[in-house]
């Protein structure tokens, strides 16, 4: 299996669940912005959930499948089409050799994940396949995909052989065949244009003036165009400290809401630096990372405060569903 990039789209990179274990060396996490969507795409084609997949941003690429391929699309609805016909997301799809996947105008969300059965045959750098653009390592030659790139694939997992064969037998008038089931809606949050994002108070929450604390929870913040895989720059009411205070650089993480002196918050995303020196006002909960990763530029975010036990309860419930899903899929693949 191999795929060829006919046009790269805005930003198409190979990602996985992150380059874990090297943050103490200043090496950023990287990995999918919407890790849950990537994991689900992988599971739908029989890959380990942390396998490498494509992260497709807003304006999608055009991809030629040079051989038959079992794929799944998850995350944002960027209007995917194969050979010009709409293709369904959230399920295994068999694409015939010579078919072309393309995308239209974004419908909902910002990032689509494309997993192929067997994943891509690329080297692991420091334990991960994720593209780290700034250091030029990982993914495909350490960079975003470009026109003409040909990415080889690995053999699919034996577990998907039955579903592969049955989809190959199905008529495919438009060059592809889909299964007649889809991933249940309970496995992934319902995307909305202007989401409510739940967050915890950050370590320096008490440093902020009471009216700024209040404004943060009560007023919407819009996502500016100066937002990327490193962080989202938000625009909203000014957030001020009670009094000027210097913070020593310390660790930050995915979802940390930090506030530089000008008072407009930045939410750190997958390519965030490992340490930061701005006061950390809040921390987005892991269970809402998908909603956060899928916000489109210009959209409004409303924060909602919850506490740590609630946040961890939601996180554990999500992981429990993922385990459940693995059992369901192992049965589905047999038919």
């Amino acid at each position, binding site marked *: 299996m191999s795929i060829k990039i006919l046009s790269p789209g805005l930003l198409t990179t190979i990602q996985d669940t992150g380059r*874990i274990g090297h943050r103490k060396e200043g090496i950023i996490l990287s990995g999918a912005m919407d890790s849950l969507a990537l994991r689900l795409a992988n599971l739908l084609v029989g890959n380990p959930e942390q396998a490498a997949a494509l992260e497709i941003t807003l304006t999608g690429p055009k991809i030629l499948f040079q051989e038959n391929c079992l794929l799944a699309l998850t995350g944002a609805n960027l209007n995917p089409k194969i050979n010009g016909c709409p293709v369904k997301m959230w399920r295994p799809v068999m694409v015939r050799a010579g078919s072309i996947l393309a995308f239209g105008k974004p419908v909902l969300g910002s990032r689509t994940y494309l997993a192929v059965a067997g994943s891509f045959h690329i080297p692991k750098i420091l334990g991960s396949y994720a593209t780290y653009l700034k250091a030029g390592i990982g993914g495909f030659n350490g960079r975003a995909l470009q026109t003409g790139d040909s990415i080889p694939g690995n053999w699919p997992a034996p577990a998907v052989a039955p579903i592969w064969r049955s989809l190959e037998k199905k008529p495919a008038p438009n060059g592809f065949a889909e299964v007649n089931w889809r991933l249940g809606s309970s496995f992934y949050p319902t995307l909305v244009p202007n989401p409510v994002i739940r967050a915890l108070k950050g370590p320096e929450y008490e440093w902020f003036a009471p009216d700024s604390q209040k404004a943060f929870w009560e007023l919407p913040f819009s996502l500016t165009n100066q937002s990327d895989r490193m962080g989202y720059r938000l625009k909203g009411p000014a957030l001020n400290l009670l009094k000027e205070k210097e913070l020593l650089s310390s660790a930050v993480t995915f979802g940390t809401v930090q506030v530089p002196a000008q008072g407009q918050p930045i939410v750190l995303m997958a390519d965030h630096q490992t340490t930061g020196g701005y006061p950390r006002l809040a921390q987005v909960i*892991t269970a809402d990372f998908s909603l956060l990763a899928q916000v489109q530029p210009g959209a409004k975010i409303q924060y909602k405060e919850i506490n740590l036990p609630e946040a*961890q309860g939601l996180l554990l419930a999500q992981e429990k569903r993922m385990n459940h899903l693995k059992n369901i899929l192992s049965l589905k693949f047999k038919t």
Partner: protein
Amino acid sequence: MKKKLPPVQIIPLGDAAVIVQFGEIISPAIHAWVKAFAEKIAQHPFSGFVEMVPAYTTVTIHYNAWVVSQEGKYNPYDEVVGFIQHQLANLTPGHKNKPRPVEIPVCYGGDFGPDLDFVADHNHLTPAEVIALHAGGHYLVYMIGFAPGFPYLGGMSNKIATPRKKTPRTTIPAGSVGIAGTQTGIYPLSTPGGWQLIGRTPLALFNPDREPASLLQAGDLIKFVPITVARYAEIKQRENEY
């Protein structure tokens, strides 16, 4: 003499990380506790431990809440805090384990250090005196951050402190050694930046094909050693063969 553990704060950083804070000021004494704790955690990681990031006064521990909770049986945060408290008890600062000494060869001045003369003028010194002061110190690596392998160093003489450039350079070559205010540092990757550049090291601070990829680790004690252009070329050649 047994040193007493300063008051330690344990602060959640979201639902999958926790900050263990040993103080609020930059000091080698506080950092010794940071290092001792980080070493202890490295030796005795708990089930669900993901990784940790030591900084000036803190060690942040990232954990997998699902694994820590034993698939939902226990409260993950309470479990992690219990583990941290267990490791904090009987913690001794790292005086037993001396910091690892690392020598960084630096070719000062010329094309490699275009701001050496400016730093000298600013501090009413000769370039040779700037080199002697910079290479005469020992620098503690407090943390690695900002960029892969970038060390936050403590211990530079105030006699060579120089403000950042008013207009940052669009590219600073990898290996550049610079001064920004009272700080000195080494650029591991070629990036834009406003530091005053006084020299360059031929060593690769970051090499993704090496394990660990970062030449320096928090807690190392480094010393800059002046070298000639010829020696720079020699070492550079060797680094590339590596």
